[in-house]
């Protein structure tokens, strides 16, 4: 279920990027190299980026410009990475964050 806009009435045809694969909680997904991680996940239908520490509530993209920190995840083993402003690279391992760590 792609959310990509292939052609836009004002912006024209979306330039073709380089497809790369990465993993989300161990599952292989594809995205465009250099796009924010959050956009690749959104395109793949992933809505929940993390669960809060105390009340285990789901959080996802809110501001999409790196301000609110709602979208942080574990990227290549490092927690609290703002996925909306971190570019996707081939082979990245993305994990849902529980509190400030991975699921135990």
């Amino acid at each position, binding site marked *: 279920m792609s*959310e*990509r806009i292939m052609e836009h009435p004002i*912006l024209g045809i979306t330039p073709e990027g380089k497809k790369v694969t990465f993993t989300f909680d161990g599952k292989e997904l594809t995205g465009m190299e250099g*796009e924010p991680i959050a956009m690749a996940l959104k395109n793949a239908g992933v809505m929940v980026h993390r669960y809060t520490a105390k009340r285990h509530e789901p959080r*996802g*993209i*809110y*501001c999409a410009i790196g301000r609110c920190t709602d979208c942080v995840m574990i990227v290549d083993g490092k927690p609290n990475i703002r996925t909306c402003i971190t570019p996707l690279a081939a082979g990245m391992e993305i994990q849902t964050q529980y509190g400030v760590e991975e699921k135990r």
Partner: protein
Amino acid sequence: MERYDVIVVGAGPAGLSAAIETAKCGMRTVVFDENAKPGGQLFKQIHKFFGSKENKARIRGYRIGEELLAEAERSGVKVVLNATVMGLYAQKEITVRIGDAIKHYKADNVLIATGAAESVVRFPGWTMPGVIGAGAAQTMMNLHHIRPGKRILMLGSGNVGLVVSYQLLQAGCEVVALVDAAPRIGGYGVHAAKVSRCGVPFYLSHTIVQAEGTDHVTGVVIGEVGPDWKVIKGTEQHFDVDTICLAVGLSPMSQLLKQAGCAMKDTKGGYVPECDAYGRTSMDGIYVAGDVSGIEEASSAMLGGSIAGITIACDSGYLADGSEQIAKYEKALGNLRKGMFAPENRGKKITQTEEGIAISETLLECGYVADSEIERYPGVTHMEGVHPVIECTQNIPCNPCQDVCPKKCITIGNNITALPVVDSKSQCIGCGMCVAACSGQAIFLIQEDIGDGMGTVTIPYEFLPLPEKGQIGIALGRDGQPVCKAEVLDIKSSNAFDHTNLLTMKVPRDMVMRARFFKS
């Protein structure tokens, strides 16, 4: 520690405009921005801007951003990206996080142009994935080519809510409702009208009761608010949506100024520094420009930035006399601050235009001008042959329609907020330049009688796929409701129209003043 003549924090429209001026005067200027790309929010603005030629009117925001970046480069401005300014201290020193290092810089002048952040409102479920800022929606669809959702509810009828709703439609999303707790629409009537005619219903005096879903948004409940701003029991209604967009205002990001010790004030528009008309704060050598000193538009941020930049150059002795340049920018800025939506009119209920014509109540309460109200405006005329009908009904600072008409059929005059008047002896050649130039998409070309009881309506059309000649569809009225069958006679696209296509449809004669959108 590195030293500069000028440090600018924020590479948006205000910061870049200021840096261009100081660099042009020979000052060593550096701009720090925490983002990976410069331009602030300009690159997600894909609509045509209002104003006059001096304000780059009828140019789309992202193009203005490209021009600004090119000029900054030509002027020798150094822009450092992925650089978060963390502290502003007395003696005009700053600390900047670049990568994993904290660096230290000092300058004779520091200009803070950090802009603003989106505000939120809280309701049960507001933190759930699927509730996003309207700016986030713009970032996703206009920068990263990703649809924010399939079915979306927008909260907020200010210009951001209206413009982003329209852009969501352009991206191929469905906007199921535009909701605002206020009893009247906050943004420009023309922005509301172009969303309305596409069939998006407005719910004024309504607010969100709750977002539904467990892990992400699957629906929303709205309800009508009473005079006490509380939801009236029994008025709740549900919509199936996957996304809720919040466009409920912006807050200046003025933390650095407070930290440095600048005198601050709490205003209706947020916590802002005290400053003069040239951007000088209470602290010597610390200046501000753009939204951080009070929320306005990108056009005013650019002018304010230019004024602050020239002021810095004058105050530091790099420019002997900047008064002429400043006067030019001040005049342009003054023009932008005129009209029904001028800063001094915020929160006031205006019932008449400057010309003494009653403002459309339906426009304020429902998002479109009613058929019974439209005839009273000076741009709405009837004559033989093809001619423009200008549904511009509020005094806003904008005049491209007057500039682009090769036959001078349209007059606004020297007062930029005046409603456009169509000359009754109009020599209209049907070129459509006015239709494409109108940033509010409020101009239509009408031919009232082409024989056989039919007439034509030419509308601005910015959606895909483009209908084809000969295609039969439904004409929608200003309220987005079907009014009659319509046949596409022509679709015109041209570089001069800048992605606004001109769709001419044939409708029955008695529908030419009602049909305002084409639905395939």
